[in-house]
């Protein structure tokens, strides 16, 4: 056994090194004249706006970053699954519930696949969804405020990797489990994995008006690993496709033991059929425990609700809804072309790409041409559904996107390149090296019915020599290609924060006009908001003290507070009275065991401080808000626990 690992490892290393050597030669040959031309194409003059937004996932940073294309400039980091000291997300009392789960407060996750909401298969720019891999969660970010407004935990799942992808009208966002696990969870021998562990594929409905998410049903599939997913569209709308690996159902040394089958499967799910079955009372509810966290823009507060059951469906109960498409070799990405006809399986251990035909698949199903079954789920005949193969396109294909002009772009991890090929003829048109080890590629709208095929961004796992070295730890890199011509042209590469796992791009024109500038103070329904300076006050309730504080350039009201005692729990509820775009104020309290707050105009946020030492302690504004920013400060006097100094507060009366 050990010998075979060594052989595989050395084989892959050799292939990898060979790939890199090749790249270096090409790279050197490509510099020069091209570089100056490229500079013009990515230059966005000061004050001008980029043509596209690119939302690049932060991978292990647990967030989502917003970039402009073609400039590669970063505009914002949106905290999603991770605490974010920059603005107090996950530290403020209002946002702590966003990170609640059935395992308690989890201030981190591994965020992978952002996907923008669609209407009729086209990007509509209302929301963007992203998955948390580690503790299975799906988050929704509102593209008016660019803030995370909802997070739903996914029970019976582990390694929520084959998500979050949305259907043609955002009917569903899916959450497929990468790891199969006992359902329900239980104490059992790991060796009994095979046949006993289940893979839950969750279909989370999205309310058309509010975007409110709800787990409509979970399909309990055999214990494979569900790697990636893609919705059908057009003619294949109503179907969802999931790649699998480890159809061997090994539970140890998967590197070898899950790479034995020549073919794994793409699971084709007719979700419309299952939806109908569920709407008619099908499926059964089972006890579950998962958090549903919702943030409200008017109360500026998140609430976390623990959900107690989930509806599960056994695929065998809905005949004709689930089929398995054999696909070589441990397929990673599964991608559906804009017409909805071709389902492309990227066998990560092969050099070929497999293109299945949806029409042929339906035909084989109708004629019941099955090649056995897996746990009762019909397996289709590889030859019956195959439309064709892209031969020897590169090594280790991972992901494919489309330009809307009949071309597909596939990333090859091992040979570290982006390959352009014709969807109909399956001929390779062009290939460009990537620096280095590319994962996903993103074309704005490139996984929708209407791609904007001007640029492609590839996201690399290794950075090496691309930038000035920063010690052993380097940021990853993304590369921008002009794909408007026959040949691809490398225009730019730029560092990205965390792991740029996958991205979603959209023309700026679709969302920039909707971007909110302030929160209206008049619409602030926060329970502890001080909407006028006259509402500013300090109240004691046992050892809890609530400070209703206002802020405006350049002072806090009140700015002096006395009568706080050691052992008190002080809640600073601070309302920003500005109603001007881009005038937040910050709040930081010495010795507070959390972070600052960054409070947007019209917003209220709460920070808890538990003073442990007697003294007079300052607080101040952290955001350079005005010429008198340094003067924006105040003091809290903390007296011994036994003290009987009355609560008092003031501003401006010396």
């Amino acid at each position, binding site marked *: 056994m050990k010998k075979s690992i060594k052989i595989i490892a050395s084989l892959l290393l050799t292939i990898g090194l060979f790939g890199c050597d090749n790249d270096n030669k090409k790279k050197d040959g490509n510099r020069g004249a091209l570089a100056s031309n490229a500079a013009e194409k990515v230059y966005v003059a000061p004050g001008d706006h980029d043509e596209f937004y690119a939302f690049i996932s932060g991978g292990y940073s647990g967030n989502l970053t917003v970039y402009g294309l073609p400039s590669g400039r970063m505009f914002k980091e949106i905290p999603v699954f991770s605490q974010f000291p920059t603005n107090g997300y996950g530290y403020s009392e209002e946002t702590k519930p966003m990170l609640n789960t059935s395992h308690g407060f989890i201030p981190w996750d591994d965020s992978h696949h952002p996907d923008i909401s669609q209407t009729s298969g086209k990007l509509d720019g209302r929301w963007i969804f992203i998955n948390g891999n580690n503790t299975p969660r799906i988050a929704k970010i509102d593209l008016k405020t660019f803030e995370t407004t909802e997070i739903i935990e996914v029970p019976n799942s582990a390694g929520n990797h084959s998500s979050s992808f949305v259907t043609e009208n955002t009917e569903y966002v899916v959450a497929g489990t990468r790891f199969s696990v006992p359902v329900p969870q239980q104490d059992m021998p790991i060796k009994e994995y095979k046949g006993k562990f289940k893979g839950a594929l969750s279909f989370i409905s999205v309310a058309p008006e509010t975007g409110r998410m709800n787990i409509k049903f979970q399909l309990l599939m055999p214990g494979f690993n569900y790697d990636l997913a893609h919705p059908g569209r057009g003619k294949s709308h109503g179907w969802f496709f999931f790649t699998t690996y480890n159809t061997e159902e090994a539970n140890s040394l998967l590197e070898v033991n899950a790479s034995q089958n020549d073919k794994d499967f793409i699971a084709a799910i007719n979700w419309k059929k299952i939806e109908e079955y569920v709407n008619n009372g099908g499926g059964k509810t089972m006890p579950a425990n998962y958090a549903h966290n919702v943030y409200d823009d008017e109360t500026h507060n998140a609430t976390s609700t623990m959900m107690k059951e989930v509806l599960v469906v056994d695929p065998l109960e809905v005949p004709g809804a689930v089929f398995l498409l054999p696909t070589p070799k441990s397929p990673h990405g599964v991608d559906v072309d804009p017409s909805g006809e071709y389902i492309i399986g990227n066998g990560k251990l092969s050099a070929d790409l497999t293109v299945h035909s949806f029409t042929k698949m339906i035909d084989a199903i109708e004629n019941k041409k099955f090649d056995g079954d897996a746990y009762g789920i019909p397996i289709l005949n590889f030859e019956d559904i195959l439309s064709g193969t892209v031969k020897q396109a590169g090594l280790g294909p991972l992901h494919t996107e489309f330009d809307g002009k009949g071309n597909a772009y596939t990333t090859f991890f091992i040979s570290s390149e982006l390959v352009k090929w014709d969807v109909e003829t399956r001929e390779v048109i062009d290939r460009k090296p990537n620096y280095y080890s590319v994962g996903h590629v993103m074309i704005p709208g490139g996984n929708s019915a209407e791609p904007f095929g001007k640029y492609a961004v590839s996201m690399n796992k290794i950075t090496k020599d691309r930038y000035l070295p920063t010690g052993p730890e380097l940021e990853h890199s993304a590369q921008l290609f002009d794909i408007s011509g026959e040949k691809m042209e490398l225009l730019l590469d730029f560092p990205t924060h965390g792991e740029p796992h996958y991205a979603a791009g959209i023309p700026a024109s679709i969302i920039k006009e909707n971007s909110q500038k*302030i929160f209206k103070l008049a619409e602030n329904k926060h329970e502890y908001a001080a909407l006028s300076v006259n509402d500013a006050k300090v109240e004691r309730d046992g050892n809890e003290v609530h400070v209703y504080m206002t802020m*405006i350039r350049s002072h806090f009201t009140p700015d002096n507070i006395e009568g706080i005692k050691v052992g008190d729990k002080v809640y600073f509820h601070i309302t920003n009275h500005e*109603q*001007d775009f881009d005038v937040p104020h910050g709040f930081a309290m010495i010795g507070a065991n959390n972070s600052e707050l960054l409070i947007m105009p019209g917003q209220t946020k709460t920070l808890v401080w538990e003073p442990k030492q007697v003294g007079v302690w300052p607080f101040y504004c952290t955001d350079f808000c005005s*010429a*008198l920013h340094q003067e924006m400060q105040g003091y809290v006097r903390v007296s011994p626990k036994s003290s009987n100094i009355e609560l008092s507060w003031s501003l401006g009366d010396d």
Partner: protein
Amino acid sequence: MKKAGIIMIIGSLLLLGLFKFPLWNIMLGAPQYPEPLGMDIYIEGIKGVQEFDIQNIDGINHYIGMQKIPKPEAMWEFRIFPLVIGGMAALGVIIGILGFFGKINYWGVLGWLVLMFVLGVLGMYDFNTWLTDYGTNLDPRAIMKMTNPDGTPMSYKPPLFGHQKMLNFDVDSFPSLGAYLMFAGMLLTLVAFFIGKKEWKQIKSR
């Protein structure tokens, strides 16, 4: 004097536009305000061009100790102006009707125009006085005390008409739609005067 009467009526009715549209507009632009802040001055009060402009102008002005922009109830002008404009429109319509039926000659039209002109000048004078007070009557505890090269306190009086650079702000002050309607109305009454004069002479000579 039929034609003159009709023109007179139309002209004075155009004054009513002031009840809907602003008389004057002052815009304040600066590098950090790519969308300039602005106030529209109506006969019934001052409003921001955008929803929160007044609050933001007040916010900036507090650095140099300027007063807050007055609410309608804080100035007698905003109670009197609507009465004056309404009254002048009504008077103009009455003169027009009387003229139409030949009960009043063209001097009535001119009389209205002169009265309107005098009132307008008084209004402008009052407006300028207010701007002067607003721009120079500063809080002695102001955070920033800017002085002219000769040591006198700087004035922040917005221009009555035209453009002026004021610290980091470009201030533009111009009549707005309501004023243009009023000017058009006054011009029409002037036309009515000349036509009336002609018509009156024709009647006399008959």
